Structure formats: structure tokens, C-alpha cells
């Protein structure tokens, strides 16, 4: 993300709360004993390969992509659960050091499977109070007792009256209620950021909306920032202010949700949108092949082996095929706040001679027709 693009974009948003700069995370692949003796090259999976990303105050940012694109690794690195190989994470402008204790109170994580996140032998009260105890918090900022803090978190998470849940065990609750307990466990520490990794994919269809509504409600009431990791662009459409699309360890397109989802510019984003099921739409083109392998990142634009623009010869016609195949491509701004890493998208942008009109959708999304 170029600095000017970033600056211009930030004027329309809250202050940045988390900034990721040039982040890289890689994992050594498995090696057999024989390979060890022969000193064969160890295959390295580069899960996150130079990512810049900013989460602003009060914003819901959706990080989307197929499995293996690095979205969960990025979220975990932001949480400080994985040490990056390179790059920086800034929290309120200050780089994270080795002491993550205080940071971890401010940034809470909600995982996909609430049943796995909760200890089956702990009561709901214990589960929610655990964070307070780990952080040595015996009373709230206004002198609240531990019980008052737990009760408040449970009712913020929609479990009312909270006292009714204190002595229950996770197995006595439904899936949706369990996820609410997990969210209460995050809220009890009064965090500034929630990182939610596929928070509703394990829940029943009719319950999902309620959990998403809850996340939006706590965002509004407590002015939290939320990073939602999801494979579901429909979900991003319902909750996200901004969307970042990841492919093979890189962000390939990012911008306001309306821009990215209604006017996608990167062929990969278009492909992802194409596979969102739609009535009567089964015959549309679908990207072939399996999710790519992060141990073998192709040269040039990393999407080019699957890119329809390259495959159809469109890239050759535009005279960019060589760059697509050989020259690594980074994000550039297309419209205010809307970035994409694609040579074709840039040509499209540059062919419009007059300055781009600011999309009216930024001011009031509701004026835009479906």
C-alpha cells in the first residue's frame, strides 16, 4: 500500500488501531530422515508473504480467501500467537515488543468452534472469569467486583439474565449460546479489538445472523474494531465496512466493501464472487484447479497460472502477459481506498483519462441500488 494511498484513505476512517507492515510468516515443511541425511532443501511454506493491512477504530474489516491463502495465519500473527519472520505489527502506532501480556488484553480472539474453545468441565462463570484471573484483574475500573464484570459481559453478549448461566456447563447450552459465552469471555477484558476467525461457520444457519448482529452491536456500543476472517463473501457483504481479499499469502485487493464486492477489479476477487451460490447460476464460469500450494509460489503475479485474463489471451492482447508471468506485482490504488494488485486493473484505471469520480457509495451506502 503506497503511503499516499494510505493517508488519503485514512482521512475517511477512524484512527488506525492495528497496522501490519510487510509481515511475513513461513513454516518449514516436513522432511523425511533420508532428506535430512542428504541435506535436501527443506520446503518452506510461505503462508504470509509481505502483507500490509490497517485496522481502524470502530471498523469491521473482513479478510477473505480460500483455505490455505494465509488468512488464519495472518490473524494469528496479529494476535501474537505466531512470531513473524519479518515485518512489524503496530498497535496504536507502537510496535509490538516481546511483552505481549497487555496487548493480549486489548486484542481478543473468537475462534470458529465454540465447543472446542470452552473447557467442558468449567462452568460458564469460570470460563468468562478466567481471562480476568489470568490478567490479575480483581476489580473493574469503577470498582466493580469480578462477579459484576462477568455479569455485565454475559448480558452484553446477550445471555440474560446472566445469573441463570453462571453454573451451567457448555454442554447444557446450544451452539449459538456457546459462541455468546466465548464472546462474553472476550468482552469481559474490555478489549479494543476482536479478531474473529470464521465466527459463525460452525453454527446453524438460523443462529448465524444473531451472532453477527451481536458483533455489530458490541462494535457500536463499545466502539470496538473487528477483524473477521471468513471464506464467505456473503457474510462480508452483511457485516464488513472494508474487505481485504487474500491469495497465496498476499492481499490482492482491498477497499470499501461495496467497491470490492460490487465492482471487483482483481480477477481472483471476481472468481471468488462467481462461486457464491445464486439461484439458477450453476452454469457460470468457475476457476479450475485446487487451492494453490504455498510451498511453490509461482513467479510474476502469483495468480497468473489460474488467471482467466492470462488464459484467454486477453493479457497478451493488452501487452501485459510478460509482466503477469514474470514481474511480481504489488497493490496500487484504483479509486480512493480501493487497491488491487493486477496489471490489467491498472490499465483499466489508466484508460480513464478524467479523474475518477469519488464513489457516492462511500457517503451513503443505501443510495446504491442492488
Amino acid at each position: 500500500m503506497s503511503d499516499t494511498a494510505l493517508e488519503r484513505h485514512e482521512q475517511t476512517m477512524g484512527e488506525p488501531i492495528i497496522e501490519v507492515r510487510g509481515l511475513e510468516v513461513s513454516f518449514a515443511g516436513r522432511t523425511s530422515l533420508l532428506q535430512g541425511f542428504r541435506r535436501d532443501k527443506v520446503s518452506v511454506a510461505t503462508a504470509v508473504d509481505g502483507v500490509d493491512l490497517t485496522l481502524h477504530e470502530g471498523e469491521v474489516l473482513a479478510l477473505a480467501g480460500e483455505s490455505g491463502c494465509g488468512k488464519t495465519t495472518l490473524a494469528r500473527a496479529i494476535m501474537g500467537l505466531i512470531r513473524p519472520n519479518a515485518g512489524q505489527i503496530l498497535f496504536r502506532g507502537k510496535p509490538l515488543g516481546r511483552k505481549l501480556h497487555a496487548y493480549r488484553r486489548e486484542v481478543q480472539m473468537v475462534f470458529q468452534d465454540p465447543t472446542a474453545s470452552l473447557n467442558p468441565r468449567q462452568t460458564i462463570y469460570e470460563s468468562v472469569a478466567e481471562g480476568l484471573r489470568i490478567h490479575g484483574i480483581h476489580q473493574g475500573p469503577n470498582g466493580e467486583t469480578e462477579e459484576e464484570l462477568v455479569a455485565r459481559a454475559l448480558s452484553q453478549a446477550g445471555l440474560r439474565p446472566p445469573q441463570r448461566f453462571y453454573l451451567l456447563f457448555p454442554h447444557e447450552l446450544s451452539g449459538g449460546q456457546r459462541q455468546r459465552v466465548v464472546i462474553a469471555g472476550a468482552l469481559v477484558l474490555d478489549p479494543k479489538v476482536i479478531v474473529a476467525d470464521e465466527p459463525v461457520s460452525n453454527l446453524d444457519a438460523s443462529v448465524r445472523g444473531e451472532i453477527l448482529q451481536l458483533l455489530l452491536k458490541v462494535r457500536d456500543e463499545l466502539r470496538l474494531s473487528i477483524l473477521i476472517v471468513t471464506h464467505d463473501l456473503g457474510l462480508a457483504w452483511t457485516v464488513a465496512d472494508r474487505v481485504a481479499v487474500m491469495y497465496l499469502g498476499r492481499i490482492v485487493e482491498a477497499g470499501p466493501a461495496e467497491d470490492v464486492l460490487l465492482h471487483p477489479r482483481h480477477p481472483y476477487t471476481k472468481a471468488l464472487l462467481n462461486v457464491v451460490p445464486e439461484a439458477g447460476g450453476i452454469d457460470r464460469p468457475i476457476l479450475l484447479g485446487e487451492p494453490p500450494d504455498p510451498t511453490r509460489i509461482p513467479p510474476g503475479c502469483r495468480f497468473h497460472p489460474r488467471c482467466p485474463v492470462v488464459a484467454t489471451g486477453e493479457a497478451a492482447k493488452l501487452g501485459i502477459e510478460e509482466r503477469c508471468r514474470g514481474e511480481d506485482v504489488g497493490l496500487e490504488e484504483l479509486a480512493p481506498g480501493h487497491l488491487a494488485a493486477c496489471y490489467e486493473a491498472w490499465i483499466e484505471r489508466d484508460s480513464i483519462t478524467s479523474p475518477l469520480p469519488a464513489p457516492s457509495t462511500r457517503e451513503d451506502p443505501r443510495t446504491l441500488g442492488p
Partner: protein
Amino acid sequence: MSVLSVRDLHVTYRTKGGDVPAVRDVTFDIDRGHVLGLAGESGCGKSTIAGAILRLHSARTRIEGEISLEGQDVLALRPGPLRAVRWTGASIIFQGALHALNPVREVGDQIAEAITVHKLAGEREARVRTAELLEQVGLPARRIDDYPHELSGGQKQRVMIAMALACNPSLVIADEPTTALDVMVQAQVLQLLKSLQRELGLAMLFITHDLSVLAEVSDRIAIMYAGKIVEEGAADRVFHEPAHPYTTALAGAFPEIGDMRFRGKPSGLGGDPPDPQHIPSGCPFHPRCPVAIDACPTLDVDLWSAGEDRRAACIHVSGAPSFSEAST
């Protein structure tokens, strides 16, 4: 004639904690070349129906009603003929493709086994047929000697599809066939299933909780809640203009991108899915229903006409008895 005809089906699991009525009075037909989509959340009884059609439930489970597959009364079949019907009459593609294959046998052998067990061909012929099947589902024939661990998730699901087609069944049941797969692979597998279904003129029962997937592959959709069908009609109309409030909520869980009604407003239902052992009285959906009226908790709901060629079990549809009638 319908390939599959289900009449007044009741399936009751008998557990130590008492009887669990999982399917209550379900009736539907599937014609040759047609896809019926069955949607609902976990515990609504949709997979139980799949199990009942192939009689996969334990002997303790009580199954009442009528299931007729190509004119044969499935529930009355003796073990021998039943085994013959399984896979040649109707086959099933399960959700867990990743676990359904035997890890220590080559996938080709596992497909060929279905053919040889049913004595449809000798071993050599079966191998030729297996190679054809693999190509049909978009896998190179040389994959015949691969072990499951050498295949990706999508490829394994393709093997499961090949297996389901091995004995030329007239009905294929797909029970959440793409749920565990990645988005892009899910779309590929759906496209494959749909094109095979069209090409072979199969009747298909497609089960999933994702209404948008169903709207895409089905001709008709039936929505289940608490063991009953609560709405039924042509796929795109059920998805786009739901008549039952529960369908509205399900459709809202998988909104179309660009639909401004859902932008910034995820729609959800209050409450939790019903416990099959304690199904609410009257309309079973009334405790969660946003448009419930006084009559609903005692109403004897039925699938009433909700316009042309569709039915719904809700007091608010046009074919329902009038309010005064219902309240008296």
C-alpha cells in the same frame, strides 16, 4: 411415474431417554431427471430421511409410512432384495468424503467393488468401467491406482461421486456433499454433480443447510423444521419469495451480494433450534416466529396452498383457514 415416492413418513429413534420423533409425516415425490432440495438446520430430520430411503437405520428405529423406489416398497423389502436395491436403485454421497474412503485400498478398487459385488461385471470389465467413471467425474483414469491420501479433498469427493454412479442408480442422494470443501472446490463439485445429473437424467435428493446452494442446483425445494416439511415449491421462488417465516430466516442467512436489505443488517432468528424430544405445540416454529399470532401455539398446521404450485405450513399464507376460523 416418480422414481421416488415418499408417503406419510414417520421416523422415530428409540433412545434410553424416550422416543425421539425425528421425521413427522413427510410426503414428497421425485421424478426422473428432477432434483429435490431438502433444507433445514441440524436436527430437523433431513439426513434421517436419507437414511430411511436406503434403510440405513438400526432395527430399533421405528419407520412408518411408505417409501416406494421405482415401484418397489423399500420398507417391505427383505434383506436380500434390499441389498440389491442399495446402490443399484439408489446410492448416496455422504458429507465426509474425506473419511468415507478406506485409506489402505486403492480408490479404483473401492469403486470397482460396488460393481463386482452387485455382479454387474467381472473384475476386468469392472476396472474398465471404473476408469470410465473416473473420467466422467473429471479425474484422469491413471488415478485408478491412487490411494485416498494421494488425492485432495475435492478429488476424493469426485471419487465418491464416481462410486455413487457405478451401478447406474436411478436415484442419487447427496447429503451435504460439499459442506467440508473449500469455496472454489465446492463450486466445481456442484457444477459436476449438476451436469452429471442432467446428462444421465438422474433423480436426485439434495440435502444441505445452505439454501443458496439448493436454489442453484434444485428444481424444487422443501424446507424442513422440527421433522416436518414447512414449505415446498419451485426452487427460485422459494428462495426469492419465501412464504414461511422460517424460510425467510434461512434465506437471510445466505444473502445475495448486492442485496441492500442485508447490507450491515445480518438477519437472524431469535431462540434455538427445537429439541426433537420437546417439540413446541401447535405450529412448532411459533416460539421463534417474528410474525406469530395468538392462534399459532394451538394451531393444527398443515401444508396449505401458498399460491400456484406451492405450499407452506403457516397461518399467514393465502390457503390457510381464515383467522376467525383458526381462533374458534
